[in-house]
């Protein structure tokens, strides 16, 4: 997290304001309110880890790499590299047909001619990659606290 207390509070306020009407949208990017269009910018966003690796902090400035935070290195604005087609879609959402399905299903098949012992329901968090086996996705990701909508189902055939 950003060690600059004043800036951190300002960012967290921004996130909280966004969460109330919509979802925990990233505070520094404009959201459409359409989940699938905004998914990549919902905090913690898809761009966080690459940005933290390259610059030492994320686009909003909320997440800061440990060494940068400890040394109190300066945190400056970094360039936006969210793909421009996503930016474009974000301001012309009526052109986009959005799937109504809240949770997309991804089928993974482990190729084998052998018999299947078991078929399990497996869910993974599209935000942080956390995976769990259960009937329904968790309400909140226990790792990154993403909401249930962030989970996708994986159908995995376990070969016995």
């Amino acid at each position: 997290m950003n060690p600059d207390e004043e800036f951190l509070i300002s960012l967290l306020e921004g996130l909280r304001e966004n969460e109330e009407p919509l979802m925990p949208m990233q505070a520094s990017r404009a959201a459409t309110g359409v989940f699938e269009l905004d998914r990549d910018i919902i905090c913690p966003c898809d761009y966080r880890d690459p940005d933290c690796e390259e610059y030492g902090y994320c686009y909003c400035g909320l997440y800061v790499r440990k060494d940068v935070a400890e040394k109190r290195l300066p945190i400056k604005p970094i360039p936006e590299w969210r793909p421009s087609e996503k930016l474009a879609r974000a301001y012309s959402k009526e052109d986009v047909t959005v799937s109504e399905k809240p949770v997309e299903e991804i089928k993974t098949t482990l190729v084998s001619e052998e018999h299947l012992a078991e078929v399990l329901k497996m869910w993974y968090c599209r935000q942080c990659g956390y995976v769990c086996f259960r009937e329904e996705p968790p309400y909140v990701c226990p790792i990154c606290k993403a909401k249930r909508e962030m989970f996708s189902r994986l159908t995995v055939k376990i070969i016995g």
Partner: protein
Amino acid sequence: MNVVKVDGKNSKHRVLLYALSTCGWCRKTKKFLTDNSVAHGYIDVDLCTDEEYEQICRDILERGGRIAFPTLIVDDSRLITGFNVDEIREALEIGNT
């Protein structure tokens, strides 16, 4: 469109800021302008209607910018994306204090 006017002693340039109400960098930009007593107007684009938002995006693109906030427009001609203090200082002729 709701342009919030902020008075300031420094009115050498016409300054318009497109911002997001929730964004930390936008807040820093607003604070910077206010602290330096720059007369300016700002629009929180996330609080605009969809039509207004589209209009602002089009305006930014036509000026050769990227849709990112804060976007500062100085004298209706120069566009500065992001809270780039040095560039903002230079455009607004504000010295380092």
